[in-house]
């Protein structure tokens, strides 16, 4: 394909970018941050080692952001994702401890781990279903319903574990510490698969399009014969399922599950979703945005860490950088929207 072709016959991707100003800005931000950091720290930033390291840092938040995005597309939100991940993780870890003895033969280990993963995923689906029923059938506001279940799931977790961490006997650490082709961390691979699968669901299925339509105008969706409660329940179930996938990554990384692990991930995931251009009022948002947003945030926080290694308190710069980037992108978006609104 020649340059002429690209200009006169834009491909689907370039058309998408042109149409969605937010994606363009995110893409530019990503490239700029990457280039800047590479120029400032050429010896350490643009290296395979650093890619391996960065690639293993963001998958959990990335998947949680996708989970929250799904709820946000319908005009809702799911605050319970991290507590679902923790409780599903605890259930899976307890199962591993119960069925796999220390000297178990490989077959038992494999079946046991498979069972543990199924238990994690099934419990994630169940907790998502409870969220969905509260929102769609009982009619609670999503923010209140999932705030409630967040506390509920955490509470159940404390009761089951008496507040202690549950160890997974090193059975799942291969997920956290293995690299495919010695390059791609398994969690990154899982993130890529989840992103691709959700992208197909959102763009190529009736269910996905219904999520957008409900978020755009719930009443019109109802009047168009869309089964709104059923679709909403589906959204929260999917969100719970993704949280359970995160639970498995948590287990792989920490070799344990605990009721109060990573509570700050909820807000960070919301931040990623908003930065990705997902409209919190519903109706718009893309997986491509999530991917670009999480990459931009990862580049900026790793880069700043490297720059400020010598400065005391430099590690706290991650939060600062994320906040600053979010505000900058939002302000730019606001002004460009306003300019577009005027013409």
């Amino acid at each position, binding site marked *: 394909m020649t340059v002429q072709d690209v200009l006169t016959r834009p491909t689907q991707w370039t058309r998408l970018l042109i*149409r969605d100003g937010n994606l363009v800005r995110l893409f530019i931000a990503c490239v700029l941050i990457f280039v800047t950091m590479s120029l400032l720290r050429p010896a350490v930033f643009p290296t395979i080692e650093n890619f391996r390291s960065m690639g293993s840092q963001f998958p959990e938040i990335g998947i949680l952001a996708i989970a929250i995005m799904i709820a946000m597309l319908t005009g809702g939100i799911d605050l319970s994702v991290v507590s679902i991940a923790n409780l599903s993780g605890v259930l899976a870890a307890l199962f591993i401890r119960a069925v796999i003895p220390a000297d178990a033969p490989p077959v038992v280990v494999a079946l046991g781990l498979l069972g543990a993963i199924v238990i994690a995923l099934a419990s994630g689906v169940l907790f998502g279903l409870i969220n969905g029923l509260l929102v769609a059938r009982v009619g609670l506001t999503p923010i209140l319903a999932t705030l409630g279940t967040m506390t509920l799931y955490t509470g159940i977790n404390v009761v089951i574990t008496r507040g202690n961490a549950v160890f997974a006997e090193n059975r799942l650490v291969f997920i956290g510490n293995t690299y495919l082709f010695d390059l791609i961390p398994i969690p990154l691979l899982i993130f890529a698969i989840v992103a691709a699968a959700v992208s*197909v669901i959102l763009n*190529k*299925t*009736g*269910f996905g*399009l*219904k999520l*957008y*339509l409900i978020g*755009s*105008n719930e*009443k*019109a*969706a*109802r*009047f*168009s*014969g*869309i*089964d709104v409660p059923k679709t909403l329940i589906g959204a929260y179930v999917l969100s719970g399922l993704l949280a359970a996938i995160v639970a498995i990554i948590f287990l792989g990384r920490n070799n344990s599950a605990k009721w109060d692990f990573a509570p700050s991930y909820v807000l960070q995931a919301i931040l990623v979703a908003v930065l990705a251009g997902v409209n919190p009022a519903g*109706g*718009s948002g893309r997986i491509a945005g999530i991917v670009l947003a999480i990459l931009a945030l990862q580049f900026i926080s790793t880069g700043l860490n490297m720059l400020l290694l010598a400065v005391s308190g430099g590690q706290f710069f991650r939060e600062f950088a994320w906040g600053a980037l979010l505000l900058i992108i939002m302000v730019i978006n606001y002004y460009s929207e306003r300019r577009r609104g005027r*013409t």
Partner: protein
Amino acid sequence: MQQPFLSLTNISKAYGGVKALEDVSLTVYPGEIHCLVGENGSGKSTLIKIIAGVVQPDSGRIVINGKERQSLRPMDAIAEGIEVIYQDFSLFPNLSVAENIALSHELAQRKRWVNWREVRAIATEAMRKVNVSLDLDALVGDVPVADKQLVAICRALVQNARLIIMDEATTALTEREIRALFDVINNVKRGGVAVLFVSHKLDEVLAIADKALIIRNGRVVVDADARELDRSKMTYYMTGRDIEESMFEWRGDPEAPPLLEVRHLTSRGNFSDVSFELRSGEILGITGLLGSGRTELALALFGVQPADSGEIRIAGKPVSIRSIQDAIANGIGYVPEDRLTEGLFLERSIANNLVARTLDNLRSKGPLLDADRVKTQITEWVRRLSIKTPNPELPAKSLSGGNQQRVVLAKWLASKPRVLILNGPTVGVDVGSKSELHEIIKRLAGEGLGVIIISDDIPELMQTCNRILLMRRGRIVEQFERKDLTEADLTHHLVAV
């Protein structure tokens, strides 16, 4: 002769090469009701914005109260007493009627403390001027649209308005409310205040105007005394063509069993003992004032607010309609009254809107949508209903009112319903598109669809229906064959108590 309050001379305005207004002149005298008439896109809104100081003209003179204004800003326009009542009224729904009427006045006085007694006194005085009485303590969000309009007018008067511009004031009102509004406007006029009444409804213009300015494509076509105009002249001036609509005649088989039969349908507090039938290919009008139960009846047939008792039969078989899904399963479709809040996904693409109803039918074997069939359906309906858009991937909000309504219609037609209920099918649609929509509806009926049109637009019913039912206080009180009826008869029956 007295000095005009406002005079615009040779105003022109272009947006990026597109001429919105060209050489438009307008003179408004105090105590005069001047109607501004034109189709959507004719330049009416731009003209209003120029008078309100929101948009600056490229050339032309603006003289207010004998003073020439070089540049008019919104603050200047308000200071001169120009008040615009937009379609959404710009009221505060969470505040009371009295607060809405009086608070902007209080704010303009730069008072630090609110004197509640004064607020009530101001509001009462304003209502007395136009001879209406509203509950001062009711929240504006809770009062009917017609009352909101009155609140907006009172607020304008409190601001010492000299010219009130009303933009499509009657869109959401029934015939009776419109008449009450006209009384109020005449009271306003007697107080020496000028009114610029913007509308595309010809009957209203004829009923209230002292003068009418008709614009088309940004140019003045006529500026005349309203007495010199009539309906057909105005249509011609607005559209540049004579619109002759043919009447609709039902050519179905009178022996065939009815498509839809409704027997003794009752919904407590909404309507009672409603019975009628609809045959294949018929266009049945249901009319009545707001609150007559016409919309509630439609919502019951569509399963939104199911009826309490009575029977609905489709093609002779009794069916139970307890939900929208039930109605759809029985081949009933519904194009809602308020297309913006109930019909359209404004931010989503036209393509998305067109398939919203039929997503479940457009699957290939698995859960995935069949991209080819989706595409075929979209192109087919854009073509069949002549939806004017360069690209169906554009958001639905990019379309004009008439085209938006076509999208909602197409969304339903794609699901091949047997009965289609249209509630106010041409509300807010300009004259040209309106007759095109009527032709589409007639063509569909010709293909065997059973159509119910719910409307209080009498000319519309007369042009499209072959039979008309009149509802009053939740009951069907009369039934007319179109051919035995004149427009005047129907209007008379509609408002008779």
